[in-house]
């Protein structure tokens, strides 16, 4: 009896972990497709850069105020689609600016491919090594705080080199967040696939935007 319990518990835990992981990746791929469709609509209607700011404000409002109350119910899935749809629509405003460049579409495709490679590579690394990256938590959140303060200062300072440095650090931080979030799912630290999806989505989104910014600035086409 006792032996059965000790054998069954880890098996149940592994099954639950696999379920969270499967649900997270399913919802993530669906929201990525929805987000891309919203970005395509936004590009088609030629939305301006202001769309990005308004959409991100709306999405952050949903993440801070609505998601925590709905994450444990079916309504949470709808909220995730609303968040990713808004973020995707906002992205269209940024993409329009890059599409105005002569090599804009090449930059966007390179950033998209690069983001995919980074996400898949890091996820595969975290899943195969099964290492616990929870020790990164404190450093990642403090790093994020520092980078937000730097970004806030740079709005007023407007230093191009600082913008590039911020984008580079964001890619490193978001890569750390992918390792941290994936490891949390594997080790049972995150059992809510809705919250896990939003975390991974934000990391991918930020890597894409930052990579696009770096490629745009260093491609030599002004």
């Amino acid at each position, binding site marked *: 009896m006792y032996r059965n319990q000790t054998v069954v518990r880890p098996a149940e835990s592994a099954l639950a972990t696999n379920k969270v992981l499967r649900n997270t990746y399913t919802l993530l791929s669906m929201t990525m497709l929805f987000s891309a469709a919203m970005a395509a609509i936004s590009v088609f209607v030629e939305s301006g*850069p*202001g769309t990005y*700011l*308004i959409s*991100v*404000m709306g999405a*952050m409002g949903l993440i*801070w105020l609505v998601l925590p109350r709905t994450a444990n119910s079916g309504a949470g899935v709808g909220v995730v689609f609303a968040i990713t749809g808004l973020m995707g629509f906002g992205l269209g405003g940024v993409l329009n600016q890059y599409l105005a460049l002569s*090599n804009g579409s*090449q*930059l966007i495709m*390179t950033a998209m491919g*690069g983001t995919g*490679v*980074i996400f898949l*590579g*890091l996820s595969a*690394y975290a899943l195969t*090594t099964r*290492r*616990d*990256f*929870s*020790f*990164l*938590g*404190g*450093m*990642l*959140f*403090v790093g*994020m*705080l520092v980078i*937000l*303060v730097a*970004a*806030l200062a740079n*709005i*007023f300072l407007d230093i191009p080199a600082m913008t590039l440095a911020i984008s*580079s650090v964001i*890619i*490193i931080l978001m*890569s*750390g967040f992918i*390792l941290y979030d994936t490891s949390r799912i594997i080790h049972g630290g995150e059992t809510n696939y809705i919250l896990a999806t939003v975390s991974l989505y934000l990391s991918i989104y930020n890597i894409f935007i930052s*990579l696009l910014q*770096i*490629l745009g600035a*260093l*491609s030599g086409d002004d």
Partner: protein
Amino acid sequence: MDWMKIGSALLLGAMIIFLFPRAKMMLKHSPKAVSGDWQAVLLPLAAIIGFIILLVMSV
């Protein structure tokens, strides 16, 4: 100063205010790294930096 800058500053300010207590809590309660942990993080991050340099050179 245009409204985009003011809006961005307000958004970033709100993010900082929202993130500050979480960062403080995470810093206090995060487990400490054990031997080999940092190496396991720095290796893929170095690979990513190399990959980005490659991407920048390709465009």
